[in-house]
């Protein structure tokens, strides 16, 4: 079973990397971009097939390691 954990910076946390990317996009002439925030995506292959259990496993993974909840939010998705 495939799953995805997406980790993003909380609102209000300064993201200098996102800002630099935003600046680069603007200087490349890519129009219509208001702002950029950089995050992380983890594509995870799960061993079991139980969907409810999978969500609990992914939440544990995110809380214990993948995200630092001081500055980051996360979202888990079981893709099937």
């Amino acid at each position, binding site marked *: 079973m495939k799953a995805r954990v997406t980790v993003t910076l909380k609102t209000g*946390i*300064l993201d*200098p*990397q996102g800002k*630099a990317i935003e600046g680069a996009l603007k200087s490349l002439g890519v129009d219509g971009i208001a702002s950029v925030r950089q995050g992380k995506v983890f594509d995870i292959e799960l061993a079991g097939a139980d969907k409810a259990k999978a969500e609990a496993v992914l939440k544990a993974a995110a809380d*214990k*390691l*993948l995200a*630092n909840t*001081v*500055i980051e939010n996360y979202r888990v998705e079981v893709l099937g």
Partner: protein
Amino acid sequence: MKSAVLVFPGINRERDMARALRLVSGREPAMVWHAETSLPEGTDLVVVPGGFSYGDYLRCGAIAARSPVMDAVRAFASRGGLVLGVCNGFQILCESGLLPGILMRNARLKFICHDVHLRVERSDTPFTRGYNAGQVIRVPVAHGEGNYAADEETIRRLEGEGRVLYRYCSPSGEIGDTHNINGAAQSIAGIINERGNVLGMMPHPENHVEGIMGCTDGRGLFAGLVAHLERAA
């Protein structure tokens, strides 16, 4: 002073730290591998050195903070044992929950590697008793992620409880944006935990302990720890 220096894969400042501890305390520190589940008997001070544990993968210090030895360090700290984290060590202490907040990417995105001036905010802690309050010391920094950040409430508490021990400043001790090398909240270079027995700092005092380096301003931190432990004994 019996000290223990933790060793993680990717750490590269552990020998500088061991040398400084040996020079100042006169005792050889124990080098403790990250997979150990206990600290040597009678350890007075645990040092988490700088470097690039696990290649800074995921987030700086995130993986090292979850290694087996850190459970022993947490237990040691909860018994009141002294813990010092420098650079990556500071990041590891934040990730392990021993200190609040996090070290973010430097505000100007550059790796910074040069001497900086620090103002010692108070002298009545084990980590600063080798200095006078308000004294300015010169020590090197070498980091890409040293921009200390925490929520407003945490910053208020740190300031209110006098837990900021070292701040980036000018050579004469002024605090301000031009001297805040990495954009850290309140120019924070080093903080202690609530109990006052865990210090994390970005600069490297261990690199300014002998004359050959051209400056010995870092010596006071280690000498102060030795004096503190002698008095406690």
